[in-house]
C-alpha cells in the first residue's frame, strides 16, 4: 500500500481494483447466502422429502463436474503465475483450457438438466405438480441454485474471454495484470459456490 501518492498522480490503482472486486464477491456470496438459508430451513421442515428427492440426482455427473471445475481453478491460477513470469503465451493457453473446462461443465449440466426435464421434474410440469409436498421444493431449489450458478459460469467465461482479448492486444502485461487477477478471483468464487452446492444436492441423502 503506497499511502503517499496523491490522487492526482494516480489514474491506475491496482489495490483499489482488487478491493472493488473483493467487495463485489461479498455481494455474490450473500446473494447465494439467501438461497442457502432458504435451503437450510426447507430441508429442516421437509427432511424426508428432501432426502427422497436427492436420490434422483446422479452422483456420477455431479462428481465429474466437481473435478472439472476444480481443475479449471488450477488452470486459471497457473495462467496468473505465467503472466507474472512474463509468459503471455502460456497464460493464454491456460485461460483457453479454463474456458474448455467451463464448456465441459456446461455440456454435462445440459445432459443432467435434460434428463430431469425428460422425467417431468422441472417446476410446473405435470409430474412435478404431482410430487409429494417438499419434493417439489427440492427440485425448485435445485434448478434455481444450479441455474444461477450456471449463469455465473457463463458470466465468468465472458470475463475470461475479455482477459484473453486484452492479452492478445498486449494490454495485460507482467506489470499490469490486475484484470486477469480479478477474473481469477471471480472464477474461484464460482468454484467455491459449486463446492457447497455439490454436497447439498448430490451427497446428502
Amino acid at each position: 500500500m503506497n499511502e503517499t501518492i496523491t490522487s492526482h498522480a494516480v489514474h491506475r490503482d491496482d489495490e483499489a481494483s482488487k478491493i472493488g472486486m473483493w467487495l463485489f464477491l461479498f455481494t455474490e456470496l450473500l446473494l447465494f447466502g439467501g438461497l442457502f438459508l432458504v435451503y437450510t430451513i426447507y430441508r429442516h421442515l421437509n427432511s424426508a422429502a428432501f432426502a427422497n428427492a436427492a436420490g434422483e440426482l446422479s452422483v456420477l455427473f455431479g462428481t465429474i463436474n466437481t473435478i472439472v471445475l476444480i481443475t479449471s481453478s488450477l488452470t486459471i491460477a497457473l495462467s496468473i503465475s505465467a503472466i507474472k513470469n512474463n509468459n503471455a503465451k502460456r497464460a493464454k493457453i491456460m485461460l483457453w483450457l479454463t474456458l474448455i473446462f467451463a464448456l465441459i461443465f456446461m455440456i454435462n449440466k445440459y445432459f443432467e438438466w435434460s434428463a430431469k426435464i425428460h422425467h417431468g421434474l422441472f417446476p410446473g410440469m405435470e409430474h412435478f405438480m404431482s410430487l409429494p409436498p417438499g419434493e417439489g421444493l427440492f427440485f425448485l431449489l435445485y434448478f434455481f441454485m444450479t441455474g444461477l450458478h450456471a449463469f455465473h459460469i457463463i458470466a465468468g467465461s465472458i470475463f475470461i474471454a475479455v482477459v484473453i482479448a486484452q492479452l492478445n492486444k498486449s494490454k495485460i502485461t507482467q506489470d499490469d495484470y490486475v484484470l486477469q487477477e480479478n477474473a481469477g478471483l471471480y472464477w474461484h468464487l464460482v468454484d467455491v459456490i459449486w463446492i457447497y452446492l455439490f454436497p447439498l444436492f448430490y451427497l446428502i441423502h
Partner: protein
Amino acid sequence: MSTEQTALPADNFFNQGGKGLMSWLTTTDHKRIGLLYMYSIAIFFSVAVILGLLMRLELIAPGKTIMEASTYNKTFTLHGVIMIFLFIIPGIPAVFGNFFVPLLMGADDVAFPRLNLMSWYLYIIGAAIALSTLVFGEGSADTGWTFYAPYSVKTGTNVSTSVFAAFVLGFSSILTGLNFLTTIHRMRAPGMGWFDMPLYLWSTYATSWIQILATPIIGITLLMIIAERALGVGLFDPSLGGDPILYQHLFWIYSHPAVYIMILPAMGVVSEIIPVFSRRRMFGYKAIAFSSLAIAFVGYLVWGHHMFTSGMSGPARIIFSILTFLVAIPSAIKVFNWLATLNKGSIDLQPPLLYSLGFIFLFLIGGLTGLVNGALATNTHIHDTAFIVGHFHYVMFGGTGFGFFAAMHYWFPKMYGRMYNIKRATRAFWVTFIGFNILYFPMFILGLEGMPRRYYDYLPEFQGWQVVSTVGSWILVTGLIMMFVNIIRGARKGKPAGDDPWNGYTMEWETSSPPPLENFHQAPVFKKPTYED
C-alpha cells in the same frame, strides 16, 4: 443574468468537459453524476408527493371520496416504492455522496468513475421499469411496498415487474456503495488519517457496508417472488412445504438494515452542519464515528421486530425486542453529541442549521415512537395502525427528508457557485416544518385509537383528525414548492456565493465554487482544521 455569470470562475465543471445533453449523459465526472441523480430524484420525488396528496385527499371523508379501494391500494404501493427505492435510499448518498465524498477527502473523483455512471443508468432503467407498471396489464402492484407473500404471488397486478425494478435498483445501490468504500479506503488526501475524516465520510462508510451486505438478500428474495409467480411451485405456500413467514424474514433481513441506509447519511450531513454554524469543534467526534458503525452492525440484527404479531416464538420476540432497544443507544449518542456541540457555541441560525435542528426534533419524535413499536406489549396494540405510518414518516421524511434539505441548503453554494435567498429559505422551512407536524402527528393519535394503515375507508369518529392531517398535507406541499422555487431561482439568478460562504472547516470549501473539472487547482494536502475563528 449575464453580468452575474461573469463573476463565477470560468473554469468550473459546468463549462469544462463539454456542453450539451450528450456531454452530461456520457460524463464520468462525479459532480455531474451527482447532479444527474439530483434532477432525476427531484422528478420522482414530486410524482410520489402528488400520489401522497391524492391519498390524503381520499382520506378527508369516510367512504369513497376520489378513488376506489383498489386504486388506493395501487397508489400507496407506488408511493412507497418510489419514495423508498427511488428517493430515500439513493437520495443523500447518490446526490451529495457523489458530489461531496471526493471533495471532502481532497480527491479528484471516485475510485471507479465509469462504474459510477453505470449506477446512474441502472437507476434510470429501474425507475423506468417501476413506472412502466402503470401502463400495461392490470396496473401497478397493489401489495404495499413490502410485497408480502402469499398475496404478492396471487394478485393479478404487475408485481413481477415492480419486483424486478427493485432488483435493478438494488444493483445500482450496491455499485454505489462499492465505489464509495473503495474511494474512502484509497483516495483520501495525503495526511488525512481515518480519524481526520469528516463525519459525513464516516456515515457514508457505514452506509456503504450495509448497502453491500444487505442488498443481495433482497435481490435473491425478489427473484424468488418472480420464480414463484412464473412457476407456481409453493415456495411460500405451506400446503407444498413452503412457509410464507420465511418471505417476511428474508424481506426484512434487507429492509430493516435499509432504513439505516436511509438515515445514516442524513446523520452525517447534520454532523457536518452543526459544528460549522455553532463555530465549535464537534463534541465527541469518535463517539459519532463509532456510533455510525454500531448502528450499521446492530441494525443488521433487529429485523424480527417487524413481525412480532406474525407468529414467532416467545424467546425470539424477546431477543429482537432487546436488540431493538439496543440500536436506540448509538442514535441517542449522536443526538446528545449534536446538542453538546451547540451548547455554548456562537450559533448562526442559517437555513442549513434550521433544517438540521428540524431533523433533530423530528427524528427525536420518530425515534422515541420507534421504542413504542419495539416494545412487545405496545406493539400488539399499534401493529399495522396509522401509528406506524406516523412513526416512519417522522423518521424517514422528518429525518432523511429534512437531512436531504439540510444538505441541499448547505452545499448549494458550492454546487452552483450561487446563493439562494436566505429569507425565503427560512420562510419555506417554517411552512414545511409546521405542515409536516400537522400532517403526521395526528396519525399517532389515530393509530392509538385503532385506525388501521392502508385502508381507504374508516369509521366516522376518526374524521376529525383525518381532516387535520389532510390540511397539513396542503401546508407541507406549499412549503416544499416555496423551497424548490427558491432553490431553482438561486441556481439561475442567485448572487455569486464565493468559495466559502459559511466559513466551513472541511476541504470542499478550499476549492472554487463551482469546483473545476478535477476538483482542486493543486493537489491538496490535508491540514487539521482550526476551529473558533
